């Protein structure tokens, strides 16, 4: 088959399924088809990764370079994202069976899926903005799906921040376009001219804020711990696994890697590291395992941002590959863990071990436990982070991750089903196993891309030790947490959001004031006077013309 045709199918398939949803019988059966929707995208990614010369591209408007294309980071993320979407789709078919509003869930799922795959392949500003907006806004339907008061609140917060992110990015994109001569809107072209842009600082700040918000960088991470627990389990998996990666791919696509912007790189690294530690600190005082996972996501994305920041500072494209591999591993592992939480909740306590052990392996993988995929991901990042302060801080962050993940395992085990005969349905278990294996093994196949030879690293003792000591340190901390954790203060989900509890009242007061103004303005004499004033205001400046 023509590769470009397959490429087109990657996005056309979910759209076609979406159109089929207009037909009621199709809509009602759509849940069981969700597993199929991402498969063409998976195929595209595989082909592209196997044959690096065959990167597909589809130009819709050659004049302005509007279209879709694929590159290596895009292909990696597209592939693993498609895998997670597919597994989570299968999981969702079982998870939501028999519950109401499956059709609506499927529609939002497919919309989000389309956007989510799209951001990895969009080649120009407009397509990227479109797909990014799609994935951001449609995910609201997943977050608020349960329609409980909690879910609705989560939905509002999620949507508000998502729209703020959209606005920041729109501004950034406008600045990018204006600064770039020529009609082309291709991301490559406009980013290439960014370093000479008169609005470089504003553009970078907007880009980092907009994509950082999506990726969960502090202090804009607050939507993660609110939205993830509220969503149904498969939706949380894709939210935390794939959707935050829209922010990462954004950073990868839009930051000028060759410019060597040391100050901006340092800032991004700083933000990333702060996030990495701050999210751990907030996560260990949470009790809902999904909330803990959400904070872990923020922490991990902080590390990715730190990796990218180091690369940005020195103008090193290696950082992109390292960040991509790290993000790809996190995508699969975090998705798997969210699915695992659902499996826990459906499994009796005494049958928990067969799930808990692999979950533990994955969880510690975030901290770089050899020989998991996480270890390889950390190794790939190591040269970028260096062995200085940043490298040390990254290792300490890994210790923090260990602590957070052990906390997660405790909380997850505690959430097991109280029913002694409970057993998770097969439809929940196999997607989880699939993802577990993928998270464990796929980084081994991706490692060569990052310049790592898997066998040699496994035999290098100092490397193994560098992976192990943070875990041991984390383990010690976990014991301490176990002992004294009860003394820590409780922090509400979404920590900083608590600062804004008064804002609705304030907004209401402004609204009431404007309403009174409106009543006044709509009085006849006032409107008449306004018209006269308007006439004079339009007239008088013209009189002063030379």
């Amino acid at each position: 088959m023509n590769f470009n045709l397959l490429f087109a199918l990657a996005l056309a398939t979910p759209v076609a399924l979406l159109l089929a949803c207009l037909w009621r019988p199709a809509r009602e059966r759509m849940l069981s088809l969700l597993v199929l929707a991402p498969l063409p995208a998976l195929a595209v990614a595989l082909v592209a990764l196997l044959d690096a010369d065959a990167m597909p591209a589809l130009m819709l408007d050659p004049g302005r370079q509007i279209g879709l294309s694929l590159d290596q980071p895009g292909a990696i993320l597209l592939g693993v994202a498609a895998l997670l979407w597919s597994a989570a789709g299968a999981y969702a078919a079982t998870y939501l069976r028999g519950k109401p509003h499956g059709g609506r869930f499927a529609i939002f799922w497919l919309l989000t899926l389309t956007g989510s795959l799209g951001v990895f392949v969009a080649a120009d500003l407009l397509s990227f903005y479109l797909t990014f907006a799609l994935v951001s806004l449609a995910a609201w339907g997943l977050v608020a799906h349960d329609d409980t008061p909690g879910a609705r609140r989560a939905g509002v917060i999620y949507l508000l921040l998502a729209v703020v992110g959209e606005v920041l990015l729109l501004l950034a994109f406008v600045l990018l376009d204006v600064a770039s001569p020529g009609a082309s809107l291709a991301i490559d072209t406009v980013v290439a001219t960014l370093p000479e842009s008169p609005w470089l600082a504003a553009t970078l700040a907007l880009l980092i804020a907009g994509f950082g918000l999506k990726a969960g960088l502090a202090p804009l991470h607050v939507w993660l711990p609110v939205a993830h627990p509220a969503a149904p389990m498969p939706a949380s998996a894709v939210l935390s696994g794939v959707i935050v990666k829209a922010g990462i791919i954004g950073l990868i696509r839009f930051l000028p890697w060759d410019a060597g912007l040391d100050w901006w790189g340092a800032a991004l690294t700083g933000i990333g590291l702060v996030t990495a530690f701050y999210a751990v600190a907030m996560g260990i005082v949470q009790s809902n395992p999904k909330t803990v996972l959400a904070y872990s996501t923020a922490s991990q994305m902080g590390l990715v941002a730190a990796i990218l920041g180091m690369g940005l500072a020195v103008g090193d494209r290696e950082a992109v590959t390292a960040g991509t591999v790290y993000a790809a591993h996190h995508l699969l592992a975090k998705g798997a863990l969210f699915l695992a939480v659902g499996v826990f909740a459906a499994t009796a306590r005494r049958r928990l071990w067969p799930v808990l052990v692999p979950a533990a392996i994955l969880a510690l993988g975030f901290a770089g436990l050899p020989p998991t995929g996480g270890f390889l991901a950390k190794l790939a990042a190591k040269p970028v982070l260096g062995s200085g302060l940043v490298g040390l801080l990254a290792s300490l962050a890994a210790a923090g991750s260990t602590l957070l993940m052990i906390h997660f395992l405790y909380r997850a085990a505690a959430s097991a089903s109280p029913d002694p005969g409970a057993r998770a349905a097969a439809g929940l278990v196999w997607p989880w196993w699939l993802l577990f294996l993928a998270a464990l093994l796929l980084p081994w196949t991706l490692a060569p891309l990052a310049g790592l030879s898997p066998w040699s690293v496994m035999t290098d003792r100092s490397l193994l030790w560098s992976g192990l000591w943070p875990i041991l340190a984390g383990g010690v901390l976990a014991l301490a947490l176990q002992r004294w954790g009860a003394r820590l203060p409780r922090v509400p989900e979404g920590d900083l959001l608590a600062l804004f509890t008064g804002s609705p009242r304030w907004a209401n007061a402004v609204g009431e004031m404007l309403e009174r103004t409106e009543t006044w303005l709509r009085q006849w004499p006032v409107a008449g006077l306004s018209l006269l004033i308007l006439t004079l205001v339009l007239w008088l400046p013209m009189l002063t013309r030379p």
Partner: protein
Amino acid sequence: MSAALIVDLGLTLLILGLGVWTVAARSNNGAVVGYIAYGLLVALVWVRLAAVDVALTEAAIGSGLTGLLLLGVATRLPRSARLTRPPTGLGTRLLAGFLSAAVAGGLAAVVLLLPDPAPTLAPSVAANLPATGLGNPVTGVLIAFRAIDTLLESVVLVFAIIGVWSLAPKDGWGERPGWLRPAPLGSALTLLAQLLPPIGILVGIHLFWTGATAPGGAFQGGAVLAAMWVLAMIAGLARPPAVSRRWLRLMLVAGPALFLTVGIAGIWLAGAFLAYPVAYAKPLILVIEAALTLSIAAALGLLLAGPPEHPSAAERQP
């Protein structure tokens, strides 16, 4: 200062005085009466400005028919409606006064600064008037040079009729317009309504006919005819026709429809929409004017007669 200027000054002061009276009058009736008198004086100004066609229109439509319309509603305002309104605050009035004065001042300054010699189209009209066969340049502008305005304006009247009719109260549709409730027969009004219309109709037709060469035309003639019709309706000698009548509707659109038809025919006969073949210009224009006069008379009369109402609605009227 010449004598004419003194007269004009007196006229101006009188008009302004009446204008102020109209705005400041305590009673609604007083304001309306003031406005009617004002309109008549403004008609005199038009004569002074050498615009006799406008003077005729102003007297017939601007003052006469409008005054009748306003009187009709002023006398029906219930006392309660006059009392419940809070007067506008002093601050608002001062500000409004200041701003209105500023606009008026600006306009006055502009009037003084208008270019001299004034730009004009009068020579151009005079040069092209023979092609229409008309003697009255104003009619020439209305029917030939700017025919589209006149066409659209006669359509405006149809719009207004639809608008007024669409306000029919419940059960009113298809009935007769309900505003002009006849006075009891045998009053002095009846006598007037019997004596005046023959003269009025003659005058109306005369106005339309003379419009081709001298001041007058379809609007003025139509207005006089409408006034006669309204008089007959008020006096109870004629009842307003039911709005569902086909002949009535035909009469209302006859003018614009004929105008439009001739205009379309002009595309082929004279090379442009709304153009007249030179040989037939005058007869065509007269035919159009005649139809317009009829339609305008009908439209003006019906605008005064109001929306259709069920006969029983008369008692409910305030």
